C-alpha cells in the first residue's frame, strides 16, 4: 500500500503513513498527543487541526461550521490521510480558565463617539468667584449660584444643609477659587433643578478623575465597576459573592428570611457589606478615594433592590406578585448606606415587574435588543430565567422559575463554578467512560451548571439516559448503578475525586435539571406564541448573565435548553446587567433609554397563562416532545443510534 508523508507544524515533525490512516494516528506516530475526550467519534472537536495543504478526506464534520471547514479545519479523529499533507496543530487548550470571584473581565471600551461633557449628568465646574466686598454683600450661596449661572449656564441649583455648613470655609480657603460638583439632571428632572453634591476649595488638575460606580447586585454575585466619569473609562472591576447567600440561595428564601423579625435589616447590612468591601477593593486598585465617588448606578433584580433598601418584599413572593416600587427616585449615598461621598447620587435603575427587574432592563439596553431592526431573543439564565423577545418596535418579557439547579443547588453533587467543579464533560459512547475538565485543574469535587448541562447532553446522546430522563440500567458499565435515590451514574470514583467520595448524578438530579430546562424553554415558546412570532425567526439569541458565558451552546441545544439555531446566531454577552448600569452611569441618554425600555416592555405572567403548563410538559423531555423544534438534535440522535451497537434487535 502506498505511504504518504504527513508533516505536522509548527514543530515540523513528519511521519510516513499508509493511505487510510487517521490523522490522530499519524499525529501519535509523530509524538503529538491530540486530546480526544469523546473517544474519537468526531463529536467534541477537541482534536481539530488545520490542514494547510494536502490530501485529507473527512469522514464526518459534525462539529464544524462551514466557515471553519472552508478555512481547512478538520477533526483529526475523522480525517483520513489520502496523500501528502501539511498539518498545523493548534496549541492545546489551556486548562485553567477562570476563578470564581473577582474574575478579570475583558477591557471595557468606552462607547465610540462618547462625549462626557454632554453625556455625563454630573459636572465638575471650577468657579472663579468675585470675593464679597462692601459694595457686593451678596450671600455666599447666591454668589455660587450666580457664578454657576454665568459660567456654566446652570439656572437653578439645590444645596443640602451639610454642604451649606462647609461652604463658607471651602470658598475662602483658596481665595474664592472653588470647584462645584453638580448633578445637572436625573430621570425625574431631565431639564429641571440641579443639585450640588460637593463644593471643594481650589481647582483640580484637568486630568484628575471624578469617580462613579456601576453596581450589579446579583442574587449570587455582586459586581462593581469603578469609572472615571470625566472620560468614561472603567478603572477597576471587582466582584464577590453576595453575602446574603448565607441566608438563602434564591430570592424566595431571602424574601422569607427578610420578612422575619430583624431579617430585613440584616439582609440590607449583608449586601451593603458586600458592596462597600468591593468599593474599597476597587478604590485600592485604582488608587481612588471612596469619598470622591459622586455617583452610583445600580442594577439588580427587583428583590435585590428591595432588600438593599430594606423595603418589605413579601408581596413579590405572593400572588398577585407585585413589587413595592419598580422605579426608585434618586437617593443619596448616605441614605442608602454606601461608603462613598455622602451626597453622591444613587440611581437605582427601573424594573418592570416582580420577576423582571432592573438587571433585565439594563441587559436589554446593553444588548441593544430595543434598537434592533430584527427580532432578537435575549435571555438571562440564573435562578430565574428572564426572557425578552422583540425589536425596536416591540418588546415582550417573562420570567420562568428555573430553580437553582443550573447554579449547582438542588443537585446532589452540584456546586458553584469554583475551583474543583467539573465544567465540561464527554462520555465515550462505547465504554460509557467519562472524561472531563475541572476548573482550576485540581481534583473534581462536584459539577457546576455548565458541567451539568454537558453531562445531561452526553448521557442522553450516548443512550445512558432515554429521552424521558430515565437511566438505562441494562447497559454494561459499573458506572450505572442503583443508589439511595434510584438509578445513578458515577461521574468520578471516590479515589479520583477531591473529597474522597463518589461524584454522581442521580435520577432525582436528572428530573430537577429536566424541569429547570423545561421551564426556560417553555418560557421561550409561550412568549413566542403570545406574539405569534416563530422562535426560529429570531435573528439572534443573546445570552446574558455570567452563567451564560460558560455554557456550551451545542450541549445546551442538545438537551433542549436553548432553541435549535445555528451557532453563529448565539452571542454570549457576559454580565449584561452591569454593562447596562455602566452605560446608564456615563450617558444620560442611555439612562433615559432604560426608562423607555422599562415602559415599553410588556410583561407576561406565566403563572397566569394556560399555555405554560402544556409547553412545560412538552419541554420536559430530551430534547423536546416535538422534535420539529430540534432538527439538528434529531439528526445527531439518529447518527448516534447508528454508531452504538444495537442492544435489542427487532425480530
Amino acid at each position, binding site marked *: 500500500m502506498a505511504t504518504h508523508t504527513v508533516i505536522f507544524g509548527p514543530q515540523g515533525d513528519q511521519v510516513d503513513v499508509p493511505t487510510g490512516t487517521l490523522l490522530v494516528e499519524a499525529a501519535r506516530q509523530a509524538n503529538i498527543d491530540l486530546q480526544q475526550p469523546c473517544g474519537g467519534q468526531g463529536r467534541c472537536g477537541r482534536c481539530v487541526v488545520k490542514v494547510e495543504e494536502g490530501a485529507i478526506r473527512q469522514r464526518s464534520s459534525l462539529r464544524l461550521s462551514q466557515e471553519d471547514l472552508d478555512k481547512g479545519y478538520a477533526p483529526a479523529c475523522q480525517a483520513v490521510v489520502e496523500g501528502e499533507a501539511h498539518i498545523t496543530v493548534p496549541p492545546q487548550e489551556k486548562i485553567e480558565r477562570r476563578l470564581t470571584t473577582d474574575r478579570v473581565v475583558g477591557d471595557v471600551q468606552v462607547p465610540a463617539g462618547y462625549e462626557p461633557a454632554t453625556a455625563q449628568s454630573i459636572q465638575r465646574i471650577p468657579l472663579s468667584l468675585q470675593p464679597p466686598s462692601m459694595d457686593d454683600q451678596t450671600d455666599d450661596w447666591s454668589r455660587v449660584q450666580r457664578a454657576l449661572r454665568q459660567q456654566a449656564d446652570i439656572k437653578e441649583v439645590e444645596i443640602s444643609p451639610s454642604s451649606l455648613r462647609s461652604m463658607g470655609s471651602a470658598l475662602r480657603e483658596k481665595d474664592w477659587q472653588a470647584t462645584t460638583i453638580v448633578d445637572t439632571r436625573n430621570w425625574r428632572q431631565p431639564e429641571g433643578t440641579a443639585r450640588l453634591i460637593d463644593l471643594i476649595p481650589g481647582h483640580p488638575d484637568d486630568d484628575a478623575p471624578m469617580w462613579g460606580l456601576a453596581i450589579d447586585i446579583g442574587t449570587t454575585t455582586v459586581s462593581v465597576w469603578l469609572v472615571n466619569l470625566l472620560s468614561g473609562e472603567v478603572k477597576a472591576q471587582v466582584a464577590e459573592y453576595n453575602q446574603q447567600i448565607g441566608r438563602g440561595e434564591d430570592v424566595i428564601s431571602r424574601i422569607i428570611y427578610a420578612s422575619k423579625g430583624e431579617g430585613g435589616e440584616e439582609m440590607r447590612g449583608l449586601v451593603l457589606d458586600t458592596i462597600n468591601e468591593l468599593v474599597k477593593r476597587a478604590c485600592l486598585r485604582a488608587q481612588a478615594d471612596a469619598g470622591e465617588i459622586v455617583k452610583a448606578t445600580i442594577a439588580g433584580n427587583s428583590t435585590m433592590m428591595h432588600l438593599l433598601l430594606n423595603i418589605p418584599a413579601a408581596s413579590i413572593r405572593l400572588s398577585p406578585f407585585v413589587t413595592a416600587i419598580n422605579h426608585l427616585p434618586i437617593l443619596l449615598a448616605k441614605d442608602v448606606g454606601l461608603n462613598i461621598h455622602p451626597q453622591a447620587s444613587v440611581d437605582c435603575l427601573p424594573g418592570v415587574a416582580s420577576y423582571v427587574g432592573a438587571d433585565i432592563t439594563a441587559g436589554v439596553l446593553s444588548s441593544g435588543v430595543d434598537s434592533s431592526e430584527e427580532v432578537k431573543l435575549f435571555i438571562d439564565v440564573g435562578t430565574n430565567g428572564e426572557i425578552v423577545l422583540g425589536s425596536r418596535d416591540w418588546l415582550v418579557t417573562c420570567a420562568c422559575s428555573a430553580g437553582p439547579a443550573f447554579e449547582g443547588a438542588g443537585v446532589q453533587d452540584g456546586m458553584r463554578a469554583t475551583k474543583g467543579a467539573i465544567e465540561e464533560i464527554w462520555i465515550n459512547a462505547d465504554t460509557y467512560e467519562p472524561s472531563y475538565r475541572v476548573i482550576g485543574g485540581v481534583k473534581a469535587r462536584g459539577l457546576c451548571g455548565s458541567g451539568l448541562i454537558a453531562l445531561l447532553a452526553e448521557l442522553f446522546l450516548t443512550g445512558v439516559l*432515554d429521552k424521558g430522563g430515565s437511566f438505562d440500567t441494562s447497559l454494561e458499565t459499573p458506572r450505572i448503578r442503583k443508589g439511595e435515590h434510584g438509578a445513578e451514574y458515577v461521574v468520578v470514583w471516590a479515589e479520583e475525586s477531591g473529597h474522597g467520595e463518589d461524584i454522581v448524578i442521580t435520577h432525582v438530579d436528572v428530573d430537577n435539571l429536566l424541569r429547570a430546562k423545561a421551564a426556560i424553554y417553555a418560557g421561550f415558546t409561550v412568549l413566542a406564541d403570545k406574539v405569534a412570532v416563530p422562535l426560529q425567526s429570531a435573528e439572534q439569541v443573546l445570552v446574558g448573565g455570567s452563567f451564560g458565558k460558560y455554557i456550551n451552546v451545542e450541549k445546551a441545544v442538545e438537551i433542549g435548553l436553548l432553541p435549535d439555531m445555528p451557532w453563529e446566531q448565539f452571542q454570549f454577552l457576559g454580565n449584561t446587567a452591569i454593562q447596562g448600569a455602566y452605560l446608564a452611569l456615563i450617558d444620560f441618554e442611555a439612562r433615559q433609554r432604560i426608562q423607555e425600555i422599562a415602559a415599553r416592555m410588556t410583561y407576561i405572567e406565566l403563572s397566569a397563562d394556560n399555555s405554560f403548563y402544556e409547553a412545560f410538559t412538552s419541554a420536559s423531555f430530551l430534547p423536546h416532545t416535538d422534535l420539529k423544534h430540534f432538527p439538528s438534535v434529531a439528526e445527531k440522535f439518529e447518527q448516534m443510534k447508528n454508531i452504538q451497537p444495537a442492544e435489542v434487535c427487532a425480530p
Partner: protein
Amino acid sequence: MPIEIPKDSWAGEVRTVSFGATAENGGTRSKTITVGGEKTLPFLQFEVPMPHPPVIALEIKDRRPDDWSSLLLETWGDVVDDPGEWAKAAEEAGADLLQLTLSLTDNEGKPAKPDDAVAAVKKVLEASALPLIVMGPGQAEVDNELIVPIADATKGENLALGICEDKNYRTIVAAALANDHLVTSRAPMDVNLSKQLNILITDMGLPADRIIMDPTTGALGYGIEYGYSVMERLRLAALQGDAMTQLPMMVTVGTETWKTKEAKVGEDVPEAWGDWLERSINWETLTAVSLIESGADIVVLRHPESVRRVRLAIEDLMAVPEPA
C-alpha cells in the same frame, strides 16, 4: 334546495394495528383483532368510512379478585376461581377479545410467582381462542418479573402486553420485541406524556404499529371530561399528522367504573339512585360509549350486560345512513 354537508379532510391518519395470531400466522387464536386506521373523527362516516369499529374486551383475572364489586362476583359466579373457565364465560358473553389482569399476590397473600402467572395465561389461551391482552398488576418490578416469562412462553400468539409507563417500559418492550408481541403504553391523562412514552418505546426499535396507547381516563362523574378531552386532542393531533399520536387507543373503562361509589355501594344511598345493578351497568355503559365517541378503539369492560349494551351502541354509531 339540497343541503351540502361540508367535509373535513385531514393530513394524517391513525395507524392500523392488529394482534392475535391465527394458525396461519403461527398462533392459536381464532381471529385477529384489527383496530385503528381512522382518517377522520369517530363515526363521521360521511367524511371517510371508519375502517374498523371499536372493539370490546372483557377483563378477567388470574384468580378470584379481592377488590371487585360483589355484583360482578355474583354475575360471574364460580368461574372467577379458574381463569380458563372465566375466559370461556367471557367469550360466551360476547367479548371481541380478553384482557387478563394479573394479581399482585396469590390467594394466600404471598407475592405472585412468575410460574403461576405463566400457567394462568396458558390456561386462558387454551380455554378461549380470542386475542388477548395481558396486564401486570401495576407495580413496576412485579410487572417486569411476571410479563417477561409470559412473553417468552407465548411467543407466536401475538399478544398485547402491559403495563408500559414512562419510568418502566424497557423490560416489557424488549420482551415484546423478542417474542412478536405488542405493548400497551399507559400515560396519566396528558397528551404530551402519551406522546413521550410512544417516542421512548419506538426509540427501542418497536414499530409504532405494535403499540396501543392507553391514555387512561376517569369514570363518568370522576373526571371523564378530562379523559375525554385528552383523547380527543390526541386524535386531533394524529389527524393533523403528528406521528407519535397516530396510535389506536384503549381505555380500561371497567377498572374505573367499578371503583366509583355508585357502582360499589348498594346500601345507605339515596333512593333516587335506583336499582344498584342497573345503575352500575349504566355507569359502565355510559362511560364506555362516551369514550368511544372521543376516539377509543378498545374498551375494556367487566360486566357482560355492559358488553351487550355497548355493542348495540357501536352498531348504531357505525350505521351509515341511506342517502336521502
